[in-house]
Each structure stands twice: as C-alpha cells, then as structure tokens.
C-alpha cells in the first residue's frame, strides 16, 4: 500500500469522487428529474396473462378521453424486433401477436397528466385467447410442452456441451467424488431508481434522455427501430441510479413507446416506471439449477469438475447466450482444474425475462462449487482456508501466463494472497478456538473465493475512445463514451487525465455521455469501463500532453523530450529550476500562430480482438482482458430455535484489482457488490412466483439487505499490477459479488452443520434443515 501511495500524484489515492457533491445536495439530475414545456406523460398498458394470443385491441374509448393525445400499439412499430444478436432478435417493443409473460406491454398512451394516461390504459379494450403456459424450465424442455416461441423446439434458448481433458478418468482416479444440486433464486437488480425516459423529436433528430448505463446499445437499437441514420439518434445520459446489467442496459417497453408517442403527438413524452413495473416486468437474475460433480485427491486437490446447469431464461432471449457461457466457462477460476466438462441449457418459459447481472453467470456456479468444496473438505478433515490455498491458481511470474484448461488467459492472479489476507484480518485460526455459542445462538464463519473477468470482449465493437481537451484557461475536459452508473468511473477518468497531465483533480471536468458528441462505446458491463476507457483516456491525455510539451519546448528553446509536467509546472527534467507554469504553456499552445485547439485523442486497443460466438459452442477462448480476484470471510449468527440467520459486523475481505486507482472507491464497490447482490440472495431475497405472476413485487415483501445486518469487513488491497490494464488495473466488485453468497452459506454450515443448497437461507428453510438434521441424528 505504501508503494502505491507514492507511485503517483493522484492515482492510488482516495480523492473524493467528482460528482458526489451534487448527489449529496440533491442537485444531481436523474432521468425522472427532467421535464420540458408541452411535455406529455406516458403509460404502458399491460396484459393480465402470462401466455395469450392477442385477438384485438380497441383504443377508441381511450382516444375519446379528454386529455389523451396519442396511443400506440405493438403493430405501430412495423414488425421491428431486437435482441443481442441477429439470431436472438425475438422481442418487440410492445407485444404484437401474443404476450409471453405476465404484464407484458401491449399498448401505450400519452396524455396531459399521469392520471389521465393511467385511466386511458384502463379504457383500452384488449381481447385475448389464453394459451397453455409453462413456468418450470424442466417441464418446458419436455416434448409436447407449450412453446413460448413457435420456432424454438423444446423451448431451448441455448445449449452448450463442452469437454476439456478427461473428466471420467479424473473421477475414477479420485479419492473422493461428490455430486450435489444447488439452486439460485430469482433475484431483482435491486436498484432504487426505476427506469425513466423523456423523448422528443427536434430538427428531424430523435432526442432521448433515459436512465441507461450503455447508451450506445440503445443508440443502435433506436436507429434500427425508427429507421434513422445514427447521426439522427441522440441519446443523452443523465445521472444513473445504478444498473447492474438489467433494464437500464437494454431497451424496454417505456423506451420505444415514449419515442413513438413523441413522434405521433409532436410533443415531448415522459414515462417513469413505478417500482411495481420494475419488479414485475423488468430484467432479473436467472434462476439456475446447478448440478455439480467434483473429484478430489486425499489431499483435497481438485481432479475434475462436471457441471450440468439449467437456467430459466424467461420469455425472451436477451443476454442468455452470454450468461450460459460465463456461468460454465468461468468454473476454471480461481482454482486449478485440469479436467472439466459441461452440459448446460437456457430455457424459455412464460416467466419475466432474465438477463445479465453483476457477477454475471459466475455467481451461480461459484456458490455451488465453493459450498461443495466445504462439504468435501469436511469429509477429508481439511480446513476450508487450507483447501482453497492448495487449489488456488498461483500468481504467474512477470512475463509468464497461466492458461486455464478452457484457455482463459491469466497474467496476474492474487487469489492466494486474497485468501491469506482475509484469513489474517479475520483471525481465522483464532476464531474457531475462541468462538462462543450462547443459548440458542450458534455462530460460525465461512469463506468464499472467486475471480472475475475485466474488460469483457464480446462480438462487434469493444474498444473505447477518449478526448482530452485543454482549454485556453488551463481547464481540461475529458470526454469518453463510457458510462458512470455509480461505480465511480468518471472520477477514475478525471484522475487518469490529471495524473498524465500533471494537474489537479479540480482542473478536470467530465460530462455525461451524449451520443451526438462522444465516441461510440459498448457500455457499462463486464467490468470493462476502467480497463478500456481508462486506457483510452490515458492515451488521449498523453496526446494532449505531447502537444503542450512541444509548445513549451518552443518557448524554452529546448526539445520536448527534455520536459516533464508535475504540479502544474512544465519543467526541464535535467534542471527543474527551468520551468514554465501550466497556464503559460497552455496559452502558448492555444494561441500559437493563428490559434490552435489542444485536443488529445486516444483509443483503447486491448479490446479490438473479439471473441467469436462460435467459441460459445466449444467453450474455448478468452472473453476477458484480465482477471480480478477476491476472497471474503463472514461470520453469521444462527438462531437455532427460529432459523433466523444474520451476518455480524465481523468479516474480512481482500481484493486483487491489480492496482486500486482510488482505494476508497474500490472498497465501497467490493463491499457493496458482496452485500447487495450476493449476500442478499444468500439470506433474504427471492421473487416468489405463482404461474408467472410475481407475488412479492415490492420492497416490503421482497426483502433486500439493510443497514442493521450489514457486515463491516476489514479490507485488504492485494496489488498485482496486471500488464493488460492501464496502470495495472483489473476489475473490482464483480468477484466479490461471487464470494458473498458462498461465504455466508458456508458460515451457516460451519455454525450448525447444515448446507443450504437452495438460496436464500430463509428462517423456514434453516429451521426445517435443522429439524431434519436433529431427526436424522436421533435415528442413528
């Protein structure tokens, strides 16, 4: 830590985030905070069936309601469908022929106020023919099951069958082989800000302000949906209230409806989803059934792994082909596994759609593998920390590379150090000797370890570009197409530019993305932003710096190579007393000859080699630029009389993000990802479903993590300086989104000896498991 603090002037230090003063005073503007003169309010009409043919839609009564200015239905979009790739384009903005999940949008209204828009929705008369529906992926895979999409036999959205090494031989040679079925719950994204949009048409150009973390995805989709050249699609980004890979990363009924209603009425149209709409119709984490079989030697070394994973994809494909790749392809991190086989399916059902979510894919199998490892460690009498250390991938020596059996390329791996550091901070060795159980309360501790990719590379556009503009007064604008959805990347970009230019954070400003003025960028997903936008910003700042050095060299009558910038001074490296102040150099550069604009440009090059979708069918190849690692240990208290489990503050976490550009942001990210998106599903959160209907679509019945049970982890940064990330950086917080759940579930196992294999570990489940255990022990 000491080294990293002194290595740079700005980077590696916990400078306050650039935008938080606006957030702390309520001045930050989110999508729902924008309004325009003449603006109308829109509302989406929703179907009350999970699977039904639309026979007719009569809007005449609604049209006659005073205050209604426009209505659109699915057919008005001219047959447009979208999806992640050509073969998964299966979804319309509003349903046309049939609805495939409960409350799918069928029409939308624009009216002078919210109440009238809502009333008009009630007046739209839709006739349906209800169809047999299917909600269980295992039922849906059977011959003769109702088809969600007529052209997808057995409702198979995607399936992969991979084989690396010789798993059967590995199992035959193992000392211990075990097979278990683990199940992950249907989980909400959990962001507090519901999706919102304000759309209008101006000068023949579509204008759109919406809460989207990947604005260029929508830029392309809107261009196709409304038959516009991309130079007439302007997606403007407000402050985003989190995303985590869901509806704010992709399109939904409100986006297309607001745009078409604005076109039809000639007025701006605003639609804000209620949290009920978010929780019933928006994208959620896949529920998965993870059957795993693992072999170990007597010393606890993993010999082979087989995964058989079935996922409920819901009514439309969305990102599911990627999900299934990540779920299985990352099983070979962070432990050494030489023999690995997978059979996996993602299945269409009449449930709401599933999609990417923080810790995408890997979270499911990490829970299964890391919990099964504790079951097997116990059988072998090996300590959970010890068995992980024995299996962890070693940190490759500088210049060397570790390839997993499925060819993930790992240049740096700090997982061993993460496990050691978290065990040290938690005082793991002392804990089990000194822990006290009192009355009905049993205490225990568990560990989880993981890796996660950073700089996701998918097909198509992957790279990121940046502009660093030096203004004549010495102030600097940084502009990238990358999105800060709350993770702090705007601060990271400003810090990188300030570092390279030798100026302060206060001299640098970054604006929100506007697709008419920024370079296209894939978006905020797959922990790619700091890796790519960071590299682009670094290069853009270096370009600008070079221009300034050349201007200074001219003024000082020396060569640019002899100069450096620090603390807003351009000085001669050999004689620091010879210098020009920053502002003098900027003015010289800007006013040279007839005037000059100092603009540095940079492009990230690391993401230019795409991952071929063909490789999804073999599972071989690398979608990451590099890999972050993490480990965490949590203590829980289990009330053995009621089954209630709670985390205590006592916990530890260590994260290898290569090099933390801003340690405080890394800590908050890692701790938050672990609690809100992982421990949440381990202890609290699950959508309860009844025939496609979400029974608990509100935060009273759907439990989410709150402050009073929050772990307060002691935190360690593990520095590995990865060669593929700018300034050595890798992802942070997606790995801890994969470690939270197994750490807590293993802690329950440690406390009371029951392994909860179908999260969340609700009081009822824990109570029943304890009862079963007691009864089984009595029989013995």
């Amino acid at each position: 830590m000491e080294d990293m603090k002194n290595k740079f002037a700005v980077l590696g230090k916990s400078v306050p985030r650039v935008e938080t003063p606006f957030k702390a005073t309520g001045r930050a503007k989110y999508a729902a905070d924008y309004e325009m003169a003449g603006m109308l309010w829109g509302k989406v009409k929703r179907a009350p069936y999970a699977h039904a043919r639309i026979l007719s839609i009569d809007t005449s009564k609604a049209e006659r309601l005073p205050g209604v200015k426009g209505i659109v239905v699915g057919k008005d979009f001219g047959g447009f469908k979208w999806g992640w790739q050509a073969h998964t384009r299966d979804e319309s903005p509003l349903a046309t022929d049939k609805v495939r999940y409960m409350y799918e949008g069928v029409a939308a209204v624009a009216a002078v106020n919210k109440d009238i828009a809502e009333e008009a929705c009630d007046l739209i008369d839709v006739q349906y023919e209800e169809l047999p529906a299917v909600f269980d992926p295992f039922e849906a895979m059977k011959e003769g099951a109702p088809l969600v999409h007529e052209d997808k036999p057995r409702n198979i959205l995607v399936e992969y069958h991979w084989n690396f090494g010789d798993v059967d031989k590995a199992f035959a040679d193992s000392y211990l082989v075990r097979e278990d079925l683990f199940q992950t719950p249907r989980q909400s994204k959990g962001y507090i800000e519901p999706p919102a949009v304000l759309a209008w048409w101006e000068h023949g150009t579509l204008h759109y302000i919406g809460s989207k973390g990947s604005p260029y995805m929508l830029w392309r989709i809107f261009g196709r949906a409304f038959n516009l050249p991309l130079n007439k699609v302007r997606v403007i980004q407000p402050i985003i209230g989190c995303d985590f890979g869901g509806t704010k990363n992709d399109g939904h009924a409100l986006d297309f409806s607001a745009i078409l209603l604005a076109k039809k009425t000639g007025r701006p149209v605003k639609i804000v989803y209620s949290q009920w709409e978010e929780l019933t119709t928006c994208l959620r984490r896949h529920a998965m059934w993870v059957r795993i079989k693992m072999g170990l030697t007597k010393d606890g070394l993993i010999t082979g792994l087989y995964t058989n994973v079935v996922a409920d994809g819901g009514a439309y494909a969305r990102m599911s082909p990627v999900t299934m790749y990540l779920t299985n392809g990352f099983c070979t991190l962070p432990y050494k596994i030489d023999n690995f086989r997978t059979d996996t399916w993602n299945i269409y059902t009449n449930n709401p759609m599933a999609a990417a979510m923080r810790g995408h894919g890997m979270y499911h199998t990490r829970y299964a593998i890391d919990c099964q490892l504790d079951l097997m460690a116990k059988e072998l009498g090996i300590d959970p920390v010890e068995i992980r250390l024995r299996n962890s991938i070693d940190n490759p020596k500088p210049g060397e590379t570790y390839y997993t059996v499925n060819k993930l390329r790992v240049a740096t791996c700090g997982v061993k150090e993460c496990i050691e550091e978290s065990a040290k901070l938690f005082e793991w060795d002392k804990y089990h000797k000194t822990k006290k159980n009192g009355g009905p309360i049993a205490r225990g501790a568990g560990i989880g370890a993981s890796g996660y990719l950073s700089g996701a590379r998918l097909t198509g556009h992957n790279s990121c570009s940046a502009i660093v503009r030096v203004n004549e007064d010495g102030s600097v604008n940084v502009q990238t197409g990358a999105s800060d959805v709350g993770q702090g990347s705007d601060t990271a970009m400003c810090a990188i530019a300030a570092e390279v230019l030798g100026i302060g954070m206060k001299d640098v400003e970054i604006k929100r993305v506007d697709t008419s003025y920024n370079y296209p960028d894939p978006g905020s997903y797959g922990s790619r932003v700091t890796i790519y936008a960071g590299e682009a910003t670094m290069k853009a700042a270096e370009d600008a710096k070079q221009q300034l050095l050349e201007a200074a060299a001219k003024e000082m009558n020396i060569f640019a190579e002899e100069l450096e910038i620090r603390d807003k001074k351009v000085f001669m490296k050999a004689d620091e007393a010879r210098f020009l102040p920053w502002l003098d150099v900027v003015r010289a550069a800007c006013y040279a000859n007839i005037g000059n604009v100092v603009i540095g440009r940079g492009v990230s090059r690391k993401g230019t080699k795409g991952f071929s979708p063909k490789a999804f069918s073999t599972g071989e190849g690398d979608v990451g630029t590099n890999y972050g690692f993490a480990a965490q240990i949590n203590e829980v208290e289990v009330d053995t009389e009621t089954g209630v489990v709670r985390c205590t503050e006592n916990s530890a976490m260590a994260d290898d993000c290569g090099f933390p550009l801003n340690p405080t942001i890394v800590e908050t990210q890692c701790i938050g990802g672990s609690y809100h998106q992982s421990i949440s599903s381990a202890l609290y959160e699950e959508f309860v479903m009844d025939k496609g209907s979400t029974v608990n679509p509100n935060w009273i019945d759907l439990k989410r993590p709150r402050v009073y049970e929050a772990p307060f982890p002691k935190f360690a940064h593990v520095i590995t300086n990865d060669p593929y990330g700018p300034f050595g950086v890798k992802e942070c917080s997606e790995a801890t989104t994969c470690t939270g759940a197994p750490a807590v579930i293993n802690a329950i196992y440690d406390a009371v000896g029951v392994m909860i294999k179908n999260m969340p570990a609700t009081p009822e489940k824990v109570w029943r498991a304890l009862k079963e255990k007691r009864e089984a022990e009595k029989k013995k």
Partner: protein
Amino acid sequence: MKENTRDIKFTLNGKEVEITVNPKMLLLDLLREELKLTGTRTGCEVSACGACTVNLDGKAVRACSILAAQVNGHEVVTIEGVADGEKLHPIQEAMVNHGAIECGFCTSGMVMSARALLLENPRATREDIKRALQGNMCADSGYVKYVEAVEMAAKVMQGK
C-alpha cells in the same frame, strides 16, 4: 366538474409557502412536480426504500406516504434545504469525503434520516445510526461508509 382543492401554508426550507393543492396529492408530488424540488427521489412509493425521506418538524418521514395537505402549518426541510448555500452540511461533507456515495439515488434520503437523528440525538452511537438509517435502502454501497460518515459528522457537529 370543479376539482376539490385545499389551500395550505407551510414552511419549506426556511421559507413560507402558500399553495393550493388537490387533497389527494402526495407531499412527494407536491415537492417534485409542483415545486420542482427534484432532490427528493421517487423510489418505491410504499414507504419501503426511504429515497423520498424529508424532515417534517425535524422528524424523518417518507414524502410518498404523507398527503401534501397534511403539512399545512408545519415545517418541512428537503435535501435542497440542508446545505448552507454552497457550504455543505457536515453530514453531506462527511459522505462526500469518506466515499460513502456511489450512484447517489438513496443519498438524499440518507442525509435526511441522518439529519433528523443528529437533531434529536447529537451523541448518536453506531447502533443509533443503524436504527435511524434502517428505512433507507441502498443498492450499491454496502452501507459501511454511510454509517461511518454519520459517525464522523456527529463528531464534527459536536466540535470534536
């Protein structure tokens, strides 16, 4: 059809406000839609997330579950009324400097709950802070630095 209306008068961020409202209008809609104070956020509309927390006579309340008409004669402070001009309140300053804030959507509510707590109990303990913030849901911070920031602010406000 003549709409049923009600005239109300209350103090908002230190200033007198007189306005005619529909009796079914929520305080949240009055603030956001009529008075354009959008710093109070709409999250769940069922009093579960705390994003719309404001201070009513110094107490933390959810603006989504109070009628505008009910604030007649009372004192309301929203997030826009917490800072002293450009000078941040110690709670806001601690949250910014300590790195508590991520996406920021819950932040207004966090500040308002913490403000009400420290008005009532300047020597609040960590347990008091957790109790005061338990109705404020966050989706990304893990709460740790929010709690620590309120602890720091309490010390600053006591001159420690």
